[in-house]
């Protein structure tokens, strides 16, 4: 900084390129905020993340404390979303439920990325037999309906939150493998990869330093969209009773719990359902916005 000021004092010409001070992240963030729908998605996702992180601070009541005397009570000032079939505060349960959904989403995506991306990258970079074998495996998995695969895995592994995450995670692996492979194929043909080779770089170095960072943006977009899918699937499996154990507040299980009382106390099923809907919508909007913001062709 000092040097720049000195130069200014000496009257040296200092060009100030416009985009200079803005790093790549701020750049994307800036472009993201220009789109109303994307911004809307970002706000929803931010609220979701905040409620998940701050659940103990912001939830008005204990999410598992029940009170049968007040069961199915409609919304009131004290209990804004009402009480469920065991008299528990629905708002608190929804706030704590966000935690579970967030954890499910993150773990599912991590499984998909950690297995799928390396598979795809190696398959695309080495080509030939490696590629053929990996891609036929991916084809087989893609031909299988995802939810069926997840159900099958749960049937093998048993009911429980951990197994739900593994099942849904594994069923997203082929998507990431495909995606990573196709970006690597496009990038490895570019000259800087050849230049890196001509400088004596090793394969692993080229993959980690040149191929992965350049193929990241479609993977980021996909994982945001997958977050929505993961939450939806987890809720679906929770609704079927294959997920968490009863007292734990999980949106799908809450929806199922409220199902029986939908005629007498519609709020019990409505609010968890609404939360699933809004959160999934938020991640989808954010994903779409990110896709546009990260697309270099749309840069102006």
């Amino acid at each position, binding site marked *: 900084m000092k040097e720049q000021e000195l130069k200014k004092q000496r009257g040296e010409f200092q060009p100030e390129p416009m985009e200079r001070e803005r790093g790549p992240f701020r750049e994307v963030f800036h472009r993201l905020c220009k789109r109303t729908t994307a911004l809307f998605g970002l706000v929803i996702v931010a609220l979701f993340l905040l409620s998940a992180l701050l659940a103990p601070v912001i939830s008005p009541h204990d999410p598992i404390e029940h009170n049968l005397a007040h069961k199915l009570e409609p919304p009131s000032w004290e209990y804004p979303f009402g009480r469920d079939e065991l008299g528990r505060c629905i708002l608190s349960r929804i706030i704590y439920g966000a935690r579970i959904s967030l954890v499910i989403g993150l773990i599912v995506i991590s499984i998909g990325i950690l297995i799928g991306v390396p598979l795809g990258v190696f398959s695309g970079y080495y080509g030939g037999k490696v590629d053929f074998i990996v891609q036929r495996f991916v084809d087989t998995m893609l031909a299988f309906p995802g939810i069926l695969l997840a159900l099958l895995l749960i049937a093998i592994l048993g009911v429980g939150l951990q197994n739900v995450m593994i099942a849904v995670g594994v069923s997203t692996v082929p998507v990431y493998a495909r995606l990573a492979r196709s970006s690597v194929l496009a990038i490895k043909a570019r000259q800087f990869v050849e230049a890196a080779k001509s*400088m004596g770089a090793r394969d692993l170095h080229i993959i980690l330093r040149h191929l992965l960072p350049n193929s990241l943006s479609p993977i980021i977009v996909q994982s945001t969209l997958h977050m929505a899918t993961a939450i939806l699937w987890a809720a679906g499996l929770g609704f079927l009773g294959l997920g968490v154990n009863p007292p734990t507040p999980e949106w799908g299980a809450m929806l199922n719990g409220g199902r029986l009382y939908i005629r007498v106390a519609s709020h019990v099923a409505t609010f968890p359902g609404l939360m699933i809907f809004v959160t999934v919508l938020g991640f989808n909007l954010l994903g779409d916005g990110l896709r546009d913001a990260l697309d270099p062709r749309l840069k102006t």
Partner: protein
Amino acid sequence: MGLLLQVRDLRTYFYTETGIVRAVDGISYDLQEGETLGLVGESGCGKSVSALSIVRLIPNPPGKIVSGEVLFEGRDLLKLTEDKIRDIRGDRIAMIFQEPMTSLNPVLTIGLQIGEVLELHRHLNRKESRSEVIRLLRMVGIPDAERRIDDYPHQFSGGMRQRVMIAMALSCNPKLLIADEPTTAVDVTIQAQLLEMIKELTSRLGTSVILITHNLGVVARYVNRMAVMYAGRIIEWGPAQELYRNPQHPYTIGLLASVPRLDQPRKARLVPIEGQPPDLVHLPQGCPFYPRCPRSMKQCASERPEPRLVDLDHMVSCWLPLDA
């Protein structure tokens, strides 16, 4: 001055669905230390492939170096293990490519990219390599190097990026620099600047250069020796001045006639070489230039001319040198 590089009967073929493409079909040449060799020819004549073959960067499959020797500092590069040749790439032999816009990784700062080479071959730590990178950037004439080192490639113009590439290529003081059409993608004024700089820096560092180009006019000043390639072979080879003054092969003559010159009247028309370069899958039996040659004879269609000396170190492959 000793012999740095000896290429002997190098053949690189590509095995494609339509047949075997003989991209490089038996070329031989020598390169002295500190010398600059111009490798000239039209698109698809095997210039780039022959240069890439030296450091074994031919994509395999479909390409394969079929035979030959590449003796560099006494070692046959074609026989080295993959690890050994990797140590040579970027350290002893460096390359500059045609497209400055795409030969840098867009997501890394240029400082990191040049520094990588230094960390790889000279085992410098981050701090040492940073000051070395600044020195290199200054060397290639990038103003305000301390600040520019943290910029991304898109913040540089084409000419500046090519300077960055040159800095990267020369970072480990290579003995040989292979410049594959380094100035094709930049405009004419920058071309001259870049070539001047390559010449100046390599002569200071004692680096030999193989300059690949299709532009005879541009390289004249910068090369000591020239090899003209046609259909995967060297058809004429000799000191640059000799080749310009006294070309022997009808193809070389044709190339020189098709370059605009300042000493010709402004209305003088350029003389093109008629026809297309031959299909490298189905090379004619005789001289590959025979179908386009204005002076072809019966013998040319059936027999391939072997290289022979017309002067002390001026070699030509033609049945009918002009002064015969």
